[in-house]
Structures are given as structure tokens and as C-alpha cells.
């Protein structure tokens, strides 16, 4: 077939053209060799998009193969729009996490909002009704007005989309750190539920079947968003930025309801959302998954703007659009469903048996490419790998040798008031976290808990990923992220089931960054294997760099857990005066990578916390068993701020004080020994409370699980007292905690 607009094969397009589609000269030559001709303009755009890091995973694909993706309950692993896992009663949970870092850095509200819109589509594309959203955020230092402005815009955007569409935002996390000053991270996770029989795949079939494009008209939004996310930001990014995508959650709500009406309908062969690289990637992936070909006519695509070229229509990232393959003859019936929701639909093409992507613009063929080339033959990159030169010096640092600047009580209050620890209420109260009428445990606890109506089941949900450990050891850091996520689920009594992940890293062409990426995937894999939680979906966001500086390696873990009986859960809050308080897990003094170290010494150095995955699994099993047996009144895992902060949080949440003994914190040792015991972030630990009657049984359970178990003291009073070294009033602790994110210097500065 003659493709119009093709250049002469011999010459290389000028550098500007290649840069626009983010192809290297070698990659361009490879394409020419493969096609035995020069690609047309449209073809070049399509190749650039599909061979981009964002769509083609050209750097990360070889690494992702390492992830454990199989397990007894896994119905759908990576490769589809989202992963799916069996949760019993004929139901599946469908979930995925995705980044919208680059767009959010440029326009925080719309960037975050469209990130939420995109991840919702990934879930309802599979036929599942979204039941929850979570958001994992990273910004620069909280006391800088620009960072607060960004954060405020991102939070408003997430709420703006989620609240409007009516899916509750039930969890997430937020950290402030220098590392993200020029590259904020905005990761959104969506969780849906569906009957197995209605699970829809994005795999085309049936040559001759029509292809329907449904939803918003196509505009010049975000053209080259995919390639944009695959290069570093620099000063000129403001200029090169694609027309910012503005989300329309109202339209997506209608689209979602219409798609859910059609879920499981045999007349619908396949459904694929339009995300990065718009029609180009969605048509190619849809057809290729089913081993088919596809032919589309851009002239049939409804447009928002006049004068759009075929190139622009194929690469537009206009939001709220869906592609459906429908059984021939059923077009009208399927379109009637969309009509009822006042959604526009166009028949834009049909499935073929050619294994090619053919794009017409009316009569002219403007693109004719083999799908294999676009998807299976993505030229992979194998960058050099090398640990950062600074690492040995960092690890040699002895955090316990530093002199603590504050007495322990004051340190505790400062930690509670840290923007990385204090109450997240100022954020989550801006999210509807209840719509759907399933939220048993709202944000503010270790994990969210959602009951599933008409069953006894509940889902526990969390996202986690502390990058500070990863700076010291990316492998261990990623493993800790998995362990901590699982710990948060176990804290409620839920059984961790499966994982989604977002790998947020710098420019992988730097050997140090690629090494971090390799290590992190390795660590994540080890932990997922040890804890029995396969990875069923994920996303990779590389090139989080500005002017050559990379973010800290930030793998974010989204985890889903299952609770057999929704009523059998515990919360983090201390529950009754007179209860005993105990620590499950080891006592150690590990300050490397801790929040205490950041606040007290403004460094991140020394050995990262140890992680014994076997112990981790046993500790969590013990807590789940204790919850199931009804032995606990509260459970809370120890995370940032260590044991003392975990105790204080349980006290604040419960409105009850406690009086505890912790001899190790008072014993003599290196200068920061006490701080290390109180605030060190040793892994595999929970603070629990329970009534006297359960004491014996608990101690026995701990022994059976071969887990250290240590009674610390009792609940009661209005102070938090730890031996002779901590004595703070509950009121002071609460004030510090509550005001951590609202303190002075509220940023009204900025645009919008």
C-alpha cells in the first residue's frame, strides 16, 4: 500500500523532528530498515509514541520480567489495563496504580485530575466498578510556598475528579523531601470489584468487527504526552509542553456507567481506554493483544477543533475516550447504550486479519505499519549500571554517634509535628472518602477497609513507599516498601493478597539510576515472593529529573488485602483504660534513614533498617491470627518515627494516654542510643493493646509464631509516659500532630 507523506528513505529527518518524537537516530534507522522505506509523518509519530519509555517500556521491560506475577488467585497479571485477583464468592478485585508526575509538575490541578481519570478508566475498561481510589504524593519541603501551592493544586485536582465522579478516595500517602523539589510525584491507584464472569479484556477479535470510539471529542490535548514523559524536564519544558489536558469527570462518570452497563455483554468483544499516545497506542495494543490487525479512518473521528491533522488526531491525548470492538451487526444496540447517557460515539474503523495498523484519512492511507514492529520489536535499551560512588561513605556513617539535639519528649513532639508524620486530615477531608457506602475504616488509619455489600468480605487497601531507605539501599528500600504495605493490611487483620507498583525513578540513562532501578525490582520481587503477594499490575515513571538531578528512587507499592469477615477488624486507636500495651517484633536502635535523623541532623546516612522477611511474615501472621481470634483492641504498625510515634499515634487516635517502661531506651550506650530505641525505624513491628484476659493466649500465640513479644505497660490517663525519659500531655501531642500540615505560611501564592 502506498503511504502518503512518506519521506525519501535515505536522509535522516532533522534533529528537531526526531527530538519531537523522542527517537534516537539509531532508532530511526532501525525503523527504516524494518520498513524498507522511510516512515511517513504519521508513522513517525506512531512509532515514536509506541517506542517511548512510557508506552514501550524500552528500558524497564527486561527488568520487569523478574517480578513474581503468578499466584493461585491471580486471574489477570500484568499485560492488561489492570490486574485482577480472585477474592472468593465469584468476585474479583481489579486494580492498578499509575503516575501522572510530569503533567502535575506543569499544571498541578489538571495533571492530578487527569491522572485520576486515567486510572479509573483502566479499571472500568475491564468491566469492574471502581470502588476506591488512593493517591501517593511526593513534594519538595513543606515550608516552601511553591511546594505548598503544588500540593494544594494536586490535592484539589484529585478531589475535584474523584469527588465529582463519585468514587471514594480512601487512602494514600504523602511525603515532603528535597529530592522532589523540581519533580513532584503524583501516583494514583484505583480498585474495582467485579463478578468473574463479567471481566472484559482489551483483546480484539473477529476481523470485520467494527471499532467504536466513544466519549469526548478529540482536541489537540497533550500531543506527545507519552514522549514528553520519557524525557527530562528542563527550562524549555514550559514551552514544549503539550496543550494541557483538562479533565471532565462528569463525562467520565457517564462513560463509566455506560461501560459498566455493557460489562460482560457478549456483543462487546473488547474494550480499551485511550491513555498515553491516544488512538495510536490504543488501536495498536488492542489489535495486537488479539493477534489481529486494525484499520481506522481519522476522518470519522469527531473533533473539538478545526483543522486537526491525521497526525494530531492519532496522537491526541484528549481525556474521557474509550475504544470498543463490537460484534458486527451489534453496533446500533451498543451505541444505543451510549446514546442513553448522551455520549457521542463514532465508528472509526474495523478489525482486520493483517496484523497491521492502517490509518486512513478519508481516501488516503497515512500509516501502514506492522503491529509486531510497534509492540514486540520495541528497541530495548540496556543502559550501563553502577552503584552511586557516594554510597559507601553514606553507609559508613554511624547515626548513633551523633549527639541528640533535644530531650526525648521534645523530639517526640517534633516528630508528631513533622509534615511527614502528622495528621493527614487536612488532605483527606477534601476527598469524599465515603461515597459508595462501603467505607468501614476511613483514611487516617494504617489502611482503608471497605466492606463488599451482600457478602461478609472486606478489602483492605494501602499504598507505601518511603524513599529514604532506598537512597541508602534501593534493594532493601523496595523490599521494605512491600513489607510495610503488607504490615498496614495485617494491622487491621486483613490478609495481603496482591500488589501493584509504580517505579518512580530518574533518568535511566545514568548508570546510577539504572542500578537503583535494577536493585529496586530485585528487592520488590524478593519481598513479594516471601510474603506471597504477586505483582499483578504496575507502571513505570522514569526521567524524573530536572537539570540533571534525579529524584531519590521511589518505588511505590499499592497493596490489596482481604478480610473474611468485615466486622472482624481492629483499628490503630487505643480503646480502653486498663488495657495492656505490647510490642510485637524486635527492639533495636536503627536510626539510618529515619525521619528522626532528617529532623535532628538533616542527613540521611548510615545503615538502613534490617529486614528479615521470614520474621516479617511471622509477625504479620501473628497479628492477623490475634485479630481473627478477637484478642486485640488495637494494632498499629511502627513506621516513620518508630516505636514512640506509633504509641503516640495510637494514644492520640484513641484519646487515651499510656504509661510504659522501655529500659533499653534508658540504658547507657552511644549518644543516640535512647533516640535509636524510641525513634529508630526498625521493621516488622506492631504496637498492640488488649485486655488482661487475652494476655496469656497472646503470649502463647507469639511463641507459636516465634515472634518477640514484649509487654510495655498500660493504657490510661491523659499523658504519654515512657519510663523517665518521655512525659508529654496527650493534648500537646494532639496539637503537634493535628497542625503538622496546617502550620503557618499557608501558600496562597501562585496561579489559579
Amino acid at each position: 500500500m502506498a503511504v502518503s507523506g512518506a519521506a525519501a528513505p535515505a536522509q535522516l529527518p532533522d534533529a528537531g523532528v526526531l527530538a519531537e518524537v523522542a527517537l534516537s537516530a539509531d532508532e530511526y534507522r532501525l525503523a527504516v530498515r524494518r520498513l524498507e522505506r522511510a516512515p511517513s509523518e504519521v508513522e513517525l509519530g506512531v512509532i515514536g509514541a509506541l517506542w517511548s519509555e512510557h508506552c514501550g517500556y524500552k528500558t524497564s521491560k527486561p527488568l520487569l520480567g523478574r517480578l513474581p506475577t503468578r499466584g493461585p488467585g491471580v486471574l489477570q497479571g500484568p499485560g492488561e489495563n489492570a490486574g485482577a485477583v480472585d477474592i472468593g464468592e465469584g468476585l474479583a478485585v481489579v486494580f492498578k496504580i499509575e503516575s501522572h508526575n510530569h503533567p502535575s509538575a506543569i499544571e498541578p490541578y489538571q495533571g492530578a485530575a487527569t491522572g485520576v481519570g486515567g486510572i479509573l478508566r483502566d479499571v472500568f475498561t475491564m468491566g469492574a466498578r471502581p470502588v476506591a481510589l488512593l493517591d501517593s504524593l511526593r513534594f519538595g519541603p513543606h515550608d516552601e510556598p511553591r511546594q505548598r501551592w503544588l500540593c494544594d493544586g494536586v490535592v484539589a485536582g484529585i478531589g475535584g475528579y474523584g469527588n465529582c465522579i463519585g468514587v471514594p478516595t480512601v487512602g494514600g500517602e504523602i511525603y515532603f523531601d528535597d529530592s522532589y523539589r523540581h519533580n513532584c510525584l503524583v501516583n494514583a491507584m484505583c480498585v474495582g470489584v467485579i463478578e468473574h464472569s463479567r471481566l472484559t479484556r482489551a483483546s480484539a477479535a473477529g476481523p470485520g468487527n467494527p471499532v467504536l470510539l466513544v466519549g469526548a471529542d478529540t482536541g489537540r490535548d497533550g500531543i506527545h504526552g507519552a514522549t514528553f514523559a520519557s524525557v527530562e524536564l528542563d527550562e524549555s519544558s514550559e514551552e514544549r509542553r503539550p496543550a494541557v489536558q483538562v479533565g471532565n469527570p462528569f463525562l467520565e462518570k457517564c462513560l463509566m456507567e455506560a461501560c459498566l452497563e455493557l460489562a460482560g455483554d457478549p456483543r462487546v468483544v473488547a474494550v480499551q481506554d485511550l491513555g498515553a499516545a491516544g488512538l495510536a497506542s490504543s488501536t495498536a495494543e488492542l489489535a495486537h493483544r488479539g493477534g489481529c490487525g486494525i484499520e481506522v479512518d481519522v476522518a470519522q473521528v469527531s473533533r473539538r477543533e478545526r483543522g486537526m491533522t491525521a497526525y494530531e488526531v492519532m496522537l491526541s491525548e484528549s481525556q474521557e475516550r474509550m475504544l470498543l470492538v463490537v460484534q458486527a451487526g451489534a453496533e446500533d444496540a451498543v451505541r444505543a447504550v451510549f446514546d442513553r447517557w448522551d455520549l457521542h460515539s463514532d465508528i472509526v474503523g474495523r478489525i482486520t486479519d493483517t496484523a497491521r495498523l492502517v490509518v486512513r484519512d478519508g481516501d488516503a492511507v497515512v500509516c501502514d505499519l506492522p503491529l509486531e514492529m510497534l509492540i514486540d520489536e520495541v528497541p530495548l535499551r540496556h543502559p550501563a549500571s553502577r552503584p552511586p560512588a557516594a554510597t559507601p561513605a553514606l553507609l559508613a556513617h554511624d547515626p548513633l554517634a551523633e549527639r541528640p539535639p533535644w530531650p526525648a519528649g521534645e523530639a517526640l513532639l517534633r516528630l508528631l509535628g513533622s509534615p511527614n508524620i502528622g495528621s493527614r486530615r487536612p488532605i483527606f477531608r477534601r476527598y469524599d472518602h465515603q461515597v459508595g457506602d462501603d467505607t468501614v475504616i476511613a483514611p487516617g488509619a494504617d489502611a482503608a477497609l471497605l466492606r463488599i455489600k451482600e457478602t461478609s468480605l472486606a478489602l483492605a487497601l494501602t499504598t507505601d513507599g518511603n524513599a529514604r531507605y532506598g537512597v541508602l539501599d534501593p534493594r532493601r528500600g523496595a523490599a521494605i516498601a512491600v513489607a510495610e504495605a503488607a504490615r498496614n493490611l495485617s494491622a487491621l487483620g486483613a490478609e495481603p493478597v496482591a500488589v501493584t507498583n509504580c517505579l518512580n525513578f530518574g533518568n535511566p540513562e545514568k548508570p546510577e539510576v539504572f542500578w537503583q532501578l535494577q536493585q529496586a525490582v530485585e528487592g520488590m520481587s524478593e519481598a513479594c515472593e516471601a510474603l506471597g503477594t504477586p505483582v499483578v499490575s504496575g507502571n513505570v515513571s522514569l526521567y524524573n529529573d530536572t537539570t540533571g538531578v534525579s529524584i531519590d528512587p521511589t518505588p511505590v507499592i499499592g497493596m490489596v488485602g482481604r478480610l473474611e469477615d468485615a466486622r472482624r477488624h481492629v483499628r490503630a486507636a487505643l480503646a480502653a483504660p486498663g488495657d495492656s500495651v505490647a510490642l510485637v517484633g524486635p527492639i533495636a536502635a536503627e536510626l539510618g534513614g529515619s525521619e528522626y535523623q532528617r529532623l535532628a541532623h538533616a542527613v540521611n546516612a548510615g545503615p538502613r533498617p534490617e529486614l528479615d522477611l521470614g520474621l516479617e511474615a511471622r509477625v504479620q501472621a501473628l497479628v492477623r491470627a490475634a485479630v481473627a481470634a478477637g484478642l486485640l483492641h488495637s494494632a498499629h504498625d511502627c513506621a516513620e518515627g518508630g516505636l514512640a510515634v506509633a504509641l503516640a499515634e495510637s494514644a492520640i487516635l484513641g484519646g487515651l494516654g499510656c504509661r510504659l517502661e522501655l529500659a533499653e531506651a534508658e540504658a547507657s550506650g552511644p549518644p543516640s542510643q535512647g533516640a535509636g530505641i524510641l525513634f529508630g525505624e526498625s521493621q516488622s513491628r506492631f504496637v498492640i493493646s488488649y485486655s488482661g484476659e487475652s494476655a496469656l493466649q497472646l503470649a502463647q500465640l507469639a511463641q507459636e509464631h516465634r515472634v518477640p513479644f514484649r509487654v510495655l505497660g498500660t493504657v490510661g490517663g491523659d499523658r504519654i509516659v515512657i519510663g523517665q525519659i518521655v512525659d508529654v500531655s496527650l493534648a500537646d501531642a494532639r496539637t503537634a500532630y493535628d497542625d503538622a500540615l496546617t502550620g503557618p505560611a499557608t501558600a496562597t501564592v501562585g496561579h489559579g
Partner: protein
Amino acid sequence: MRFGIAVFPGTWSDRDCAHAVGLDGHQAVMLWHKDRELHGVDCVILPGGFSYGDYLRCGAVARFAPLMESVADFARRGGLVWGICNGFQILCEAHLLPGALLRNASLQFRCAPAWLRVDTTESPFTASCRVGDVLQIPVSHGEGRYVADQATLDQLEREERVLFRYTRPDGGPVGAASPNGSLRDIAGIVNHDGNVLGMMPHPERACEPLLGSADGMRLFRSVARSMEREGTAAGVG
């Protein structure tokens, strides 16, 4: 009894309301915005959500839906109409209730527990409550600041048409803890005839102890009981 639940494009608490209604074995009948048929329901709920995206003004477009003509008619004939959140906004836009709901004073969306003091029980919506009861029912809205002119506010109070006010958990004045800055802490009002209620908080989210509160159930029970007492709204639906 049968509760009709309006579904506009952008409505989302329709499903939650249907679930709440079903807890006591009542029937939920979904009413599509393009239809005019009310299917003989006893009470129409206009549920929460962002009808038409709440673009321009909340409820501004929804009030013109064909269904709303039937609902207005139903209300005029004495039928029970219960606007929750977006439903309250729609009722104000449709002038079935006085006043308007503006952006929260904080300019931020608020999803949080709220406490409502019941100010009158001379209403089918609160018949099973006692005056002064404090109900824990959550709010979830960005535009819930109730405003009306002085004369209207005075009239509402005089005619005991303020059903709910935001308070503290102990029933004391809410002050700066108001979720939205409503004038006179108004959370819910009825029309002159008492058969049309608009309230910003979400009773359908407070119908099961597992979800944190069952106080909202008392409103559904009030409606059911008063309907039983009066016989079904045969002459109305």
C-alpha cells in the same frame, strides 16, 4: 413502601440511597431524569452527586430535566420530596425551596462527620426523633453554604422550617467548626407545606453501625412511619 430515587447524569448517591432504603425492606425505584413517570412512589429522593458536573452552578441544569417537572408537580400535590446534598441544591435552583447554596466558606470540599440538632419533629422527616436530638450524619460537599436574605431566614425560623442545624457533638453551637459557613448554621429546611426537605448532610451514609453511625436511619424510619400513618400517598403519586 416505595422510594423513588432520581438519577441525573452525574448523580452518585442514587445507589447508596437505594441500599439504605433496602435495609428496612423498602423498595427503591430508580427514576431516570429523561422520564416523567414517577411509578407511583411514596417519596421521591433527589440524591447527592454532581448532576451535569455541577458546572455553572450546582443543580442549575438538573432542575430543567423532564423528571423535575413531575417532581415539582408531585411536590405541589403534597408528595414527599427529599433532596440530599446535590438534591438540596437542585430544589433551591428549582425554587421549591428558598435560598441558595454557595461555595463552602473554606473554599474547600469537606468530607467529615457532622452533628445535626433536630429543631422540630413536626415533620414527616423527623417524626421519629425528639427535639434536641443530635444526629451524627456526615457531610460531603464543596458548595453547602446556605444563604438567603434576612426576611427569608426569619420566616424559616418563625415557621419552624429549619429541621436541622450543624452543632457540636454535645449539641452546642458549631461556631467555627461549621463545615461550610451556612447562615444560622442551617443544615436542612423544609418548604412552607413541610413536604419538601432539603439537607446537605448524607443520611444514607449513616444507616449501619459498621460504617460509623446509624443515625441517618432514623430519618428513613420517620418517613416510613409517617407514610404508614397517613396511608400511602395514593392521592398524590
